[in-house]
């Protein structure tokens, strides 16, 4: 089952496109990271998935085909918007009370136990909590609804390192219990530990999407003489070429680990951060969206 499925999804504000032709399929049981620069369309995509924004093109479905925004879809989604909004003048107990009455399903026992574990007093006003505690409160409210899909928009932005660790620990525990996760963030190093699926957005387009291990196995960095860089680049599906006077690094997509290395060149595996940054830098036309394109099985010119 796919917890998220979009097809040609797009949103324009007037003539300004915020997201274009977004086609994704996220399998259940994964923690997917949504990465990209500010204004790339991350929040737009998330808001459309939870029905807060109406698409101007294409379609979005969640939790195995439920139309995004439908009652059945919303019932199974826990969403924490950017800046973890809580009603500042309400006490934590009142926040629980409110959320319980606004939802069909709410696990009061879990919510209270979780807040106690975190040392967050029920009587305290939400606005008086630290940034990390407010984020944990918002996450607790979302999880107490027993969602099957958790969507978190930049949940780490306002958190100190310890709060980040605690917050992500809670999210990963939910994942271990079978909740699928989609979260956006700029914290690539942290995402590498928690996410097993990556979706890279830039300028309103999906630049790359796929399982983390598949993405790493599907790329390599070729290093060799700059004079041959163009010839090598011509023989491969290239993501990015970085060239100095003598030496060049060419990031290429490969069909498998057995693909031969051009003579005189070295091949190195790439890291996720390196890979994502290269896709973000690459101009839109150069990158192919999706692992299917990146990992296509037919041999490249070199292999023939």
């Amino acid at each position, binding site marked *: *089952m796919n*917890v998220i499925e979009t097809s040609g999804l797009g949103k324009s504000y007037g003539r300004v496109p915020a997201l274009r032709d977004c086609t994704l399929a996220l399998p*259940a*049981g*994964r*923690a997917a990271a949504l990465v990209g620069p500010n204004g790339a369309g991350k929040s737009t995509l998330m808001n459309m998935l939870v029905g807060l924004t109406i698409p101007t093109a294409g379609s979005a479905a969640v939790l195995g085909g439920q139309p995004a925004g439908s009652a059945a879809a919303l019932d199974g989604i826990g969403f924490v918007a950017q800046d973890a909004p809580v009603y500042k003048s309400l006490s934590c107990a009142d926040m629980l009370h409110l959320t319980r009455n606004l939802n069909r399903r709410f*696990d009061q*026992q*879990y919510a209270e*136990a*979780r807040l106690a*574990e975190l040392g967050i007093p029920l009587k305290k006003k939400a606005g008086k909590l630290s940034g990390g505690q407010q984020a944990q409160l918002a996450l607790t409210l979302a*999880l*107490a609804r*027993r*969602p*099957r899909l958790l969507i978190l928009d930049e949940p780490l932005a306002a958190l100190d390192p310890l709060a*980040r*660790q*605690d917050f*992500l*620990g*809670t*999210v*990963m*525990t*939910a*994942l*271990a*219990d*079978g*909740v*699928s996760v989609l979260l956006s963030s700029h914290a690539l*190093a*942290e995402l590498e*530990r*928690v*996410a*097993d699926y990556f979706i890279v957005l830039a300028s309103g387009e999906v630049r790359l999407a796929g399982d983390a291990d598949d993405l790493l196995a599907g790329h390599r960095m070729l290093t060799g003489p700059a004079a041959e860089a163009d010839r090598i680049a011509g023989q491969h599906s290239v993501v990015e070429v970085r060239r100095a006077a003598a030496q060049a690094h060419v990031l290429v997509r490969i069909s498998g680990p057995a693909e031969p290395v051009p003579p005189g060149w070295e091949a190195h595996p790439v890291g996720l951060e390196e890979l994502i940054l290269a896709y973000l830098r690459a101009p839109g036309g150069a990158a192919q969206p999706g692992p299917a394109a990146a990992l296509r099985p037919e041999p490249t010119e070199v292999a023939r």
Partner: protein
Amino acid sequence: MTIDKGISTAGAGAAGSPASGGDAGGGPPRGTGARGAPSPIEYRLDPASGVPTYLQLVQQVEHALRLGYLKPGDQLPKVRDVVAALAINPNTVLKAYKELETKGLAAGRPGQGTFVQATLTQVALPELTGLRRSLLGWLASAEETGLDEDGIVALFTSVLRDFYDRRGGADRHAGGDVRADSEGAA
């Protein structure tokens, strides 16, 4: 692959999720406080090591086995506890535990967790891997000739007995690099 139930959590348990074992999320939330003895070890992560996270966990278990911090029958840290403490993906922990199972060092018990099943104090894991590989090769050829599982077990047991009988059984237990623990091997 089993996610340990131990402490109360969110999540109704989505069906068909690879991260949730058959029994995860099914029962009512339990109170804090895990059953049984806690694991004798705790993992740490070294982000600067360049070693993949799952491999760091595998290496830390092997290290603890060599140094005797872990003994057969001991429980490895529960997946849920590890992901909560280190904020890492549960599939990473499962991958590490699967690797330890493949190496014959640990075994999963459905609904309980993963337990140490062998000791490494006499070490030489590469040799064990080599032996395992040659045994797998032998098993493949045995199957090819038409032996079924029972036939293979019978043949192996018979040859094993002959082998030690001929030596008079003197060094019967001296050769094993990894000693399986009968209780943990259940």
